[in-house]
C-alpha cells in the first residue's frame, strides 16, 4: 500500500514540474537555513573538544548582586568562587572544580609587528576538567599556579603568529608587558566555545596585582565536573544552598542583599548570558522556547507559501479527485495519499537542503568569519533536519488536505465553472 502511494506521489510530482520545482526551492532553502543554524548551535553546545564532558559539566558564568536600589550583574569574582564554589570539589559526586577568567585581549609587539591575543588565566585544574588536544608539550600544573610561575599554554594560531609555526615549547613570549615560558601548544578552540576558547592560557597567580582575590564580581568562571550526569540536579541544588549562605556574608550588605546565579550547563549558561532579564529561573527552558519561537517565526512565511502552492496543486487535480471519489475512494484515502505525496516532496527538498547546507558550511569555514570555527554536518544534525522536515511536511499539508477532503465529488467533477 505504502509503496503504491510512493509511486503515485512520485508520478504526480513529475507531472507538474514547475510546481514541484517551486515547492522544492522553498523547502530546500528553508531547510538549508535551519540546518546551518542547527549546525551552529550544535557546534556551540555539544560535547566536543575541549568540552568532551559537556554532559556532566556545570559552570557558574554569571552573578547578579541585588539590593533595594541597585543591581550589578557580571561574571563572578575570584573571591566569591574561591570561598563558595571551589570547596564543592570535596563533595562526593563532584570530581573537580576549575576556575578560569574570561578572555581579555592582550597585545604583544614582535619585531615591529603587533599581535593581539585572547588570554585567559586559569588554575591547574582547568586542564583536567577540559580535555584539550596537545600538539606539543603539556599543560601547566596546580603547582605551577600555586607557585606563580610564568608559564603559558598557547594555541596553534598563537604559535603561528609568534614563532611562524616552529616548535614553541621552552621558548618565551611577551604579552601585556609580562614574559611567559611556553610549556604546551594546543589545537585551536573555536571562538564560540565561550567557556574555553583563547589563544593564551596562563596561571591565575601571574596577574599583575592580587586584588582579584577579594572580588565578588569580576571576570571569573567556575567549571564544575560531576562524576555522573545524573548528579547534576543535586549539584545545582547544592550550589543554590551555598548561594543562600553567601548572602549572609556579602561585602556591602547595605547596598546588596540578594545573590542570583546558577550552576548551568552550556546551553543554560548561554541563555543566562545572552537572554535579557537578570533573573532567569529556568534558563535552559527559556533558551529552548526562544529558539523554538525563532524557528517557527522563520518558518511562517515558507509554510504559508507551501500551503498556498499545495492548495493550488490540489485544485488543479479537482476533477481527478472527483473521479476517484466517484469511483469510491474515501476522503481518508485521498488525504492520506496527499499527505504522503507532500511528505515525499518535503523529504526530497530536505535532501537538497542538506547538500546545500554542506556547501554553505564549507564556504563558511573557508571564509574565516568566525576564527577556528569548523562547522560540520553530523548524524545529530541530520536527525534534527529530518525531524524539522517531517514537521514542515505535515504542517504544510494539513490545511490543504482538509480543504481537499471537503471537496464535494460532484463539484469537483464539474470543475469550477467559469
Amino acid at each position, binding site marked *: 500500500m505504502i509503496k503504491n502511494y510512493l509511486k503515485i506521489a512520485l508520478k504526480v510530482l513529475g507531472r507538474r514540474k514547475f510546481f514541484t520545482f*517551486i515547492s522544492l526551492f522553498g523547502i530546500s532553502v*528553508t531547510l538549508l537555513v535551519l540546518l546551518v543554524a542547527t549546525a551552529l548551535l550544535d557546534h556551540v553546545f555539544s560535547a566536543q573538544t575541549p568540552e568532551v564532558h559537556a554532559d556532566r559539566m556545570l559552570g557558574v558564568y554569571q552573578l547578579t548582586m541585588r539590593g533595594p536600589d541597585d543591581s550589578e550583574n557580571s561574571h563572578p569574582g575570584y573571591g566569591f568562587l574561591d570561598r563558595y564554589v571551589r570547596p564543592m570539589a570535596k563533595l562526593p559526586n563532584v570530581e573537580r572544580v576549575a576556575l578560569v577568567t574570561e578572555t581579555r585581549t592582550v597585545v604583544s609587539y614582535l619585531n*615591529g609587528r603587533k599581535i593581539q591575543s585572547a588570554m585567559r588565566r586559569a588554575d591547574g585544574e582547568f586542564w583536567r576538567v577540559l580535555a584539550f588536544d596537545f600538539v606539543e608539550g603539556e599543560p601547566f600544573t596546580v603547582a605551577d599556579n600555586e607557585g606563580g610561575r610564568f608559564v603559558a599554554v598557547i594555541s596553534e594560531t598563537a604559535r603561528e603568529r609568534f614563532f611562524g609555526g616552529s616548535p614553541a615549547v621552552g621558548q618565551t613570549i611577551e604579552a*601585556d608587558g609580562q614574559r611567559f615560558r611556553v610549556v604546551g601548544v594546543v589545537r585551536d578552540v573555536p571562538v564560540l566555545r565561550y567557556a574555553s576558547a583563547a589563544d593564551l592560557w596562563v596561571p591565575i597567580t601571574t596577574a599583575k*596585582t592580587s*586584588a582579584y582575590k577579594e572580588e565578588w564580581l569580576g571576570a571569573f568562571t567556575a567549571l564544575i565536573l560531576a562524576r555522573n550526569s545524573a548528579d547534576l540536579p543535586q549539584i545545582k541544588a547544592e550550589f543554590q544552598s551555598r548561594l543562600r549562605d553567601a548572602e549572609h556574608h556579602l561585602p*556591602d550588605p547595605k547596598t546588596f542583599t540578594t545573590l542570583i546565579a546558577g550552576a548551568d550547563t552550556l546551553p543554560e549558561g548561554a541563555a543566562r548570558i545572552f537572554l535579557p532579564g537578570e533573573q532567569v529561573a529556568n534558563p535552559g527552558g527559556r533558551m529552548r522556547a526562544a529558539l523554538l519561537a525563532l524557528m517557527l517565526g522563520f518558518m511562517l512565511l515558507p509554510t504559508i507559501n507551501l500551503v498556498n502552492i499545495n492548495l*493550488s496543486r490540489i485544485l488543479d487535480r479537482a476533477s481527478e479527485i472527483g473521479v476517484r471519489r466517484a469511483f469510491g475512494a474515501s476522503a481518508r484515502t485521498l488525504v492520506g495519499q496527499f499527505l504522503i505525496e507532500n511528505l515525499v516532496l518535503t523529504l526530497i527538498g530536505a535532501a537538497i537542503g542538506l547538500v546545500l547546507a554542506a556547501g554553505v558550511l564549507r564556504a563558511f569555514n573557508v571564509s574565516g568569519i568566525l576564527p577556528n570555527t569548523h562547522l560540520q554536518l553530523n548524524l545529530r544534525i541530520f536527525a534534527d533536519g529530518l525531524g524539522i522536515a517531517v514537521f514542515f511536511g505535515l504542517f504544510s499539508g494539513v490545511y490543504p488536505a482538509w480543504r481537499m477532503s471537503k471537496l464535494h465529488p460532484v463539484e469537483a467533477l464539474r470543475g469550477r465553472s467559469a
Partner: protein
Amino acid sequence: MTRHLLKLVWNRKRSNALMILEICVSFLVVFGVATLGLFFLDNYRRPLGYQWQSTWNVAIGMGRSDAEPSGDSTAQQATLARLLREVRSLGPVVAAAGSWVLPFEQGGWSSRYQFKGRSLDMDADRATVGFDQAMGLDLVAGRWFEEADAALVEEPIVINRTLARAVYGAEDPVGKRFADERPGERPFRVVGVISDFRKKGELMPNGNFIFHFASMDHPEGKPPRNLLIRVRPGTTVAFEEALVKRMQAVAPEWSFEVRPLAQVRATSFRFLLTPLIVAGTLAFFLLLMVGLGLIGVLWQNLLQRTREIGLRRAAGASRVAVHRQVLLEQLVLTSLGVLLGTLLVVQIPVLDLIGVLSNRVFASGLLFAMITMYLISILCALYPSSLASRVQPAEALRYE
C-alpha cells in the same frame, strides 16, 4: 473596473485569503529589514561630532572590577595623572585625555535629570581636560573644562546642541544653571556647548549628551579607564610599542591595550551590521521563494479561470484588457495584504513600541516595503497574465 475587481476578489476571498496573508507577512518582513537598514542609513548621514581617524584608545586594566567599592581610587587617580603627563610629553602625541566611556561602544552610561518637573534622558560621560582636542570636538559656544574648574562651587558641564535646544530653546546656555536642584548635590552650570558627540557611532541616533568633568585634583568616584590619544598622522605601530612600554613603566600593575579608534569603529560596525546582513540575506531568499510561489499560484488560478477569460474575450475584452485586468486584480490583492500589514505596523508608533524610530525612517520603511511588494506582485503576475491574455476564446468556450 476597479469596483468590479474588488467584488471579484472579495467574492473569491476564501481562495485569496492565503495569498493576501502571504503578501502581508512578506510585507512585514520587508518592512522590518528595510526599516533597520534605513535607520542606520539615516543616522549615518548625520555628522558624528568628532574625529576618529588618528585617535587611539588605550583601555586600562586596573586589576579590579567596576563593581567593587574602590578604596584606593586616590592612588589610582594620582597614577593616572602621572600617566597622562607622561603620554602628553611624547613627540607623536598631539593631545591625550581620559574618559569613562569609549566612542563606538554600544553600552554606556545614561542619566535622567528633572527640568521644572519635566524629565530628560541623556547619555553621559566624564572626561578630563584635553578631551576636546583628543577627540576633535567641535565647540560651538563657551569652552571645554579646565583644571581650575575643580575649585568651582558649581559642577561644570558641557552639553551637546540637541540637549541645549531641548533645555534652553534659542537662549545661549553658557553660564546658565542646568537641571532642577538635587538635594545634597552640587548644582550644574553649563560652561560649553559642542555640536554633537554621537558616542555610539555613525549608525546609532544622536540624542542628548552631557559631559561631566573628571578632575585629576579632586578624584570623584573612580578614575577614567580609557585614554584617548590623538597622534600625528602616519604614526606607526613602533610608537605604539614604545607608548605601552612608557605607560608600563609608570604603572607596572596596570594592563594596557592600545587600539586605534578605527578598529573600535570597525568592530562596532560589524556588531551592528551583521544582524542586518543576515536578516537581509534571509529576507532575499524568502522573497524569492514567495515570488516563485506567487507565479505558480497565479498561473494555477488563471488556468482554472480559462473559461471566464474566454467569456470576457467574447464580451469584447481585448488581449491588453485581459492582461491589464489580471495585473489589476493582483494589485487589488497586494493592496489588501499591504493594508493589513500597514495596520499592524502602525501600531509601533501608535503604541510607541520602538522609541528611537523617527517618523521619517518609519514612513520611508513603510514606503519601501509597499513599493517592494507591489513590484514583486506585478513582476510575478506578468508571466501568468500574459498567458491569460493569450487564451483563445473559441477554445476556452468550447463545449467539453
